[in-house]
């Protein structure tokens, strides 16, 4: 339990730093790389929660595909690779207020509602349980998601094609 606590502390610190850097850094490529750190931290948290299949999917889909897609997007839109001063708009102070308000509201509600609730990670959900659930109870949403993914990929090709 102590090892789990230490691992959570380390990954949570890295994720907080990474998330702040994603939304404040002046370099677009660095933002993508900090995002990769945050996504890896999320995968580590899934492992701490004994959700190993979701963690593997997170690494494959997010770190393997989506970050590469972001880097391609940065490259194809010819964003300046070095530092850039005008990445933020004029609403920045107001945005900071809104972000802090949302975090304060969520934190106060969570502290009140889930104050000292403990997680019993002894009873884990195995991947076979997850597969059982997907292919019995949630098979229709699963098929719908497959169609949505196909439609989105075909749509992306149609939108981005030079004609």
């Amino acid at each position, binding site marked *: 339990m102590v090892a*789990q606590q230490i691992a*959570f502390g380390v990954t*949570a610190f890295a994720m907080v730093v990474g*998330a*702040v850097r*994603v*939304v404040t850094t002046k370099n677009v490529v660095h933002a*993508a790389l900090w*995002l990769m750190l*945050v996504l890896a931290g*999320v995968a580590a*948290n*899934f492992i*701490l*929660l*004994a*959700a190993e299949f*979701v963690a593997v999917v*997170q690494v494959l*889909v997010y770190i393997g595909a*989506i970050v590469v*897609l*972001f880097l*391609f*997007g940065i490259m194809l*839109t*010819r*964003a300046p690779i070095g530092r850039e001063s005008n*990445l*933020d*708009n004029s*609403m*920045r102070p*107001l*945005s900071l207020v*809104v*972000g802090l308000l*949302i*975090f304060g509201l*969520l934190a106060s509600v*969570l502290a009140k509602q*889930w104050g000292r*609730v*403990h*997680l*019993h*990670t002894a009873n884990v*959900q195995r991947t076979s*349980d997850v597969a*059982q*659930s*997907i292919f019995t109870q949630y098979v229709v*949403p699963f098929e719908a998601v497959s169609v949505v*993914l196909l439609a*989105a990929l075909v749509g*992306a*090709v149609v*939108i*981005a094609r*030079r004609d």
Partner: protein
Amino acid sequence: MLLNEYLFLAAFLFAAGVYGVLARRNAVLVLMSVELILNAVNINLVAFGAFRNSPVGQVFALFVIAIAAAEVGVGLAIVLLIYRNRRSIDLSEVDVMRG
């Protein structure tokens, strides 16, 4: 482990993502902030699934991951189209539909 530790971490990621969506003017950076928000939701789903001892949290986290992949694909295609038409992906200049 307290359930709240995961929930607080997810709340922070969510708030950082909202700040990024509002404050950034580069369209690719806005999409990255949306990814932060979606990952915060995923942490919440898996944490509550572990808390309730039910696999449904993980099932929905997998659905969210699939939808996020579709969203990034279409989003970056739209960003590329905006760049091709306007030579810029500055969102404060994309105001053709402003009333």
